[in-house]
């Protein structure tokens, strides 16, 4: 079952990497001359300058939710390796699955809040980092569900 183990770990790592890229890269909203993300709003009109995201409470909530989802996904990976060696035979990776599902819920709420509130701050179409967040959500959810269903053998 080494192949299954490898596939599960790769799925988990893919979700984690997507979360990282989505949180850090400055491309949540783009229009012709500016791009903005969770942390700042940069524009290339008359030289390149950025203003930091002081637009209030909701953007900080989105920042917090994205960071929490990364933390929980990391914890879930760590718990997976712990439980792999300490779980009894036939046991389920409940804790790992719960943390990963929580991570996916955090990403979903963060992306929803951003979708609803971002027109107040920046105008433009959504960039690829925003799309990555929405892709990371089902990946993390599926990964978490697999952990909950999975049983430890041998």
């Amino acid at each position, binding site marked *: 079952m080494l192949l299954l183990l490898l596939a599960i770990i790769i799925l988990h790592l893919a979700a984690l990497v997507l979360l990282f890229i989505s949180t850090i890269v400055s491309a949540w909203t783009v229009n012709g001359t500016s791009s903005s993300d969770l942390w700042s709003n940069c524009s290339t009109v008359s030289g390149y300058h950025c203003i930091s995201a002081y637009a*209030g409470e909701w953007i*900080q909530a989105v*920042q*917090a939710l994205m960071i929490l989802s990364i933390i929980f996904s990391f914890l879930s990976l760590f718990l997976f390796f712990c439980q792999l060696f300490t779980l009894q035979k036939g046991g389920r990776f409940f*804790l790992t699955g719960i943390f990963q599902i929580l991570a996916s819920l955090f990403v979903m709420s963060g992306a929803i809040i951003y979708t609803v509130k971002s027109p107040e701050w920046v105008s433009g179409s959504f960039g690829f980092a925003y799309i990555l967040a929405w892709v990371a959500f089902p990946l993390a959810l599926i990964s978490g569900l697999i952990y909950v269903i999975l049983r430890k053998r041998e």
Partner: protein
Amino acid sequence: LLTRTPFPPQSQAIVIYTGWERHALVGSDVRLSCSFFSWRWTSEDVTFSWSYRPDGSRDSISIFHYTGGAPYVDNKGPFRDRLEFIGNPSRRDGSILIKNVDYNDNGTFTCDAKNPPDIVGRPSSVRLLVFDKLPVQAGVITGAIIGAVLGLLVLIVVIYYLMRFLVARRVFNLSVSKHGKKGKGKEGSQPRQVSLRPTCRYTVACFKTLKHNTPQLNL
């Protein structure tokens, strides 16, 4: 007779520091600080120069100049009667105070300092942002949410282990006392006749043996 003119000393780089952004409430006073680093001692001919470029404009105007030991403030431009020099040039501080800021003062302030012969440097700019009510500092709510969720997680873990320990302790207490109703009576009041007498108290090894004897907590 030929008189020798002394070589002018070599000029080196000077590094100028200002803030990055300043947030201010309408009607308040805001201090714009400017300092510099230079390898030489502060000379008597040190100069500080502030200029202002409004948001959306491409031109900047000069609003302050300090030279020859005296400050010269703007008395014709947008900051007349509102600008005050509060720096200390001998301590390399060229800060200015702008009183009673308004929305028209939004813009970029550039400080240029020279410490002859160190004159090669890049002027540094600070942006002024004027608000009618100060927004929450960047990162306060972020940190609060993250701290609250992680704190809740730690609390849940601590409560879980505490419950396990208390259940273990109940068995432990019952085996020691004769009355048998001590401890937190949560489930069931049947005093179990536990015959084992643990030989140790409150050590990790003792807790581990107790773990084997306690009913399993299902998560």
